[in-house]
């Protein structure tokens, strides 16, 4: 009986979750740093927050870029019929990366407008 595919590790499944996990990490870092910075001295809140946002967003973007690049590359090599391990998960991951990127952009957007710790 050839109908069943060999059991493969859960990697493909987990990979789908990487992009939204990056969004969540970025989100948590920004939220937590704002909370922490606001308990600290008022003097250099703005700069600390600015750097945090910059670093966190750079890291998150880099993560997404690496993920997407990997997905696109494996798309060129994987046989097109290897569902569900291959293209199906790959394309789902790409769309999730897009949504997560939007999420990250939206999280970052207010930091350009609003000062840290202001009520």
């Amino acid at each position: 009986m050839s109908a069943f595919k060999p059991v493969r590790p859960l990697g493909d499944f987990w990979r789908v979750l990487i992009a939204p996990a990056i969004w969540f990490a970025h989100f948590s870092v920004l939220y937590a740093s704002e909370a922490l910075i606001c308990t600290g001295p008022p003097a250099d809140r703005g700069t600390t927050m600015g750097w945090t946002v910059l670093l966190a967003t750079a890291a998150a973007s880099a993560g997404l870029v690496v993920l997407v690049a990997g997905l696109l590359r494996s798309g060129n090599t994987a046989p097109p019929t290897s569902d569900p391990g291959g293209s199906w998960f790959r394309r789902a991951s790409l769309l999730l990366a897009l949504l997560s990127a939007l999420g990250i952009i939206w999280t970052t957007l207010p930091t350009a407008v609003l000062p840290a710790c202001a009520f």
Partner: protein
Amino acid sequence: MADTAPEYPNRLPRPRREQAELAAIWARPRSWRIVTDVNNTVIGYFYVGTAMLFFLLAGILALLMRLQLAVPSNTFLSQETYNQIFTMHGTVMMFLFAVPVVEAMGILLLPQMLGARDQPFPRLGAFAFWAYFVGGLIFFSTLFFDLAPSGGWFMYPPLTSSQFSPGMGADFWLLGIGFIEISAIAGAIEIIVGVLRTRAPGMTLDKMPMFGWTMLIFAGMIVFAFPAVILATLLLELERTFDWPFFIAARGGDALLWQHLFWFFGHPEVYIIFLPAAGMVSMIVPAMSGATLVGYRFVVVALIATGFFSFGLWVHHMFTTGIPALSLSFFSAASMAVALPSGIQIFAWIATIASGRLRLLTPSLFVLGFLFIFTLGGLTGVMVAMVPFDWQAHDTYFVVAHFHYVLVGGMVFPLFAAFYYWTPAFSRRTLSERLGRWTFWLMFAGFNIAFFPMHISGLMGMPRRVYTYPAVMGWDVLNMISTIGAFLFAAGIALFLIDLVRNLRPSLSDTAGNIWKAATLEWLPNDVYGPRSIPIVTSVDPLWDQPHLAEDVEAGRYYLPGSITGRRETIVTSPIEATPQYLLSLPGPGWTPLLAAIFTAAFFMLLTVKAVTLAVICGALAVAMVIVWMWDSDPKPLAAVDIGSGIKLPTYAAGSLSHSWWAMIVLLLVAGSLYLAYVFSYLYLWTVSPQFWPKPAALAPVTAPAVSALLLVAGSAILVAAGRLLPRNRRSGRRFEVLAGLAAVTLAAALMTEVSAQWRAGLRPETDIHGALVYMAAFLQAQMVLPVVIMAGFAVARSLGGRLDREQRVVFDNLSLLYHYTVGQSLLGLLLAHGFPRLAA
């Protein structure tokens, strides 16, 4: 989509007595013994029925409130009664109706839909149901004894603290709801393992019915969201009972901590309720349109994205608490992000409708009603996600209107669509189309008449949770309209009940069948055992794309046309590819789940009324029942069996192959989330009142945690050694038993060491927030140590009884997982309790 015709695993004709034997093995208990049944169909009926009962009860409460508010300065209900009623309405709708009913639909539908004979843990499912049933009824009846909570379904302290709510109502809420959450988690574990491991062979994840996907995400979200509120209820109950000041500002606690924890659960909760309903819509729209779901992959992506984004929304409910603007804006952004997946789903359904021909029968009407109401609710959701607008709208009737549009539109309308749609699969007769149309129009018109005006009354300044209002406010006309609408809506529900009485004839075998010409497996001919044989699935719409599937399944050409081992059994498949892995024996009817549930409920309820001794006895009895039921699980491995076309499956699995291992992993995720919520609380409270953290000199000396940590690590090592010494077949397990017992003792000793060190250092939990938090870590550690010790005792007993060895080892594997997790959590706790104050100083 049609693949090549499959080779059939089993040849016809089937032996004459095979089907009768199968039916005998799966026969359900007769008459009142039905309460001992554990089969998903029967439990599913009970579960859905009970949830609907609570829907009606909470609905009646809503009508009482609407009567009270119909005219200004009304005296129909007293202030205190009204406060109890609105608290109960929200609590019952959210905890006793919304989550249970979707879980119930999962229990009822999933096995059939996925091509399994039952859930992987039938007795756990039965336990979850009965716990909910008993606990829910007791909780609701507090209303009749004037003991109901009146602090709102959100239970904000300090209003719910012992100082401002000295009565028992708040305790009933905390223990009752905490307990029902545990039942929900049990159900979630069942669903995750069921969806991932018991799909029909060949039903790869991308061919799974969308309802399966939504239930998977639903259960996953429960695993991460519910522990936060369980922790919150624990903290508040400890504060009320033992004066540990978690939410008391004077001793360093913070009222906002509750709000963070509650909404970390509460916002995902909305999506926890909505996603399964969306899954139902994703099943109904294709079936009623006769077209495959457009953008299946997009919808799956949307579900996963919702699962994540919804965890970035909790402060959305705290926009007016004076948190810095920038923090608020992050949550505003996430609120925008979570709108995207809903948009994807809505347009995927519209595309599906466009690609087929939607038959405008009752289920479709409810789906269309859902689309309208939910879209409107989503849009007002975008409005309240705008922080400045929310400063005005928050806690007004605008928000009441908004979330009823989201919840009733997003969940109740799809649920009614589902009732009309799936009844033919579970009843001899279908529901009436004529009554159904009336029901729909009454509900749709009634809903909008009731809730649309609330947007306006809210903007005119009417706050939530007011038992009356003066005539001069000009809210009276709008409120009267709302009340009329509410009764119209109720009339629709009444008509539905009449329809049920007239036409619902539950049946396991002789159903109306696939009257919609739908495509998924639950529409195969079914009997008590599910489908006659378990099909090979090659398409997302198997009944459309695999010709003669129904006849072939019914003829017994596919897997397991009879019972191979003479027991109830189903096929366990791999999580992604659904490749058959082993044959799982399932338990039959029994008293233990029911009794365990009753004793567990009694334990919690007796604790509430402070009957501690009786409570402890009931708790012990509950544990005893569980042990009795576990004794027969994990049966002796039999030889591998041939399930057809040369596939030989083992009848036993251990380690990561076992479905039981998966369940334990999910349970540990729950425990881990709970602990993370605690770590968050610890750090959060430190940012609020760092002045309560002691100087390093005042801390317990480092030697104590060092000893404790050493014990923990040693315990892990001992358990690993014990695993190496598991007896081979028929040999004595003496050395294993000694080491397993020793490991349990070591773990308990580590806990004792930590607690006594803190105590000797002069720390007391009620003094201030730091003390409370340190002892809370110990409490959470004890909460893990206790089950580990019981389980270790159980493993030793099984070894003595000759039921645990190198092969039959699932009990030990699960013990190990739990043990090593507990060690990890305890080490983190030590680090926090002893390391953090030194670091912070």
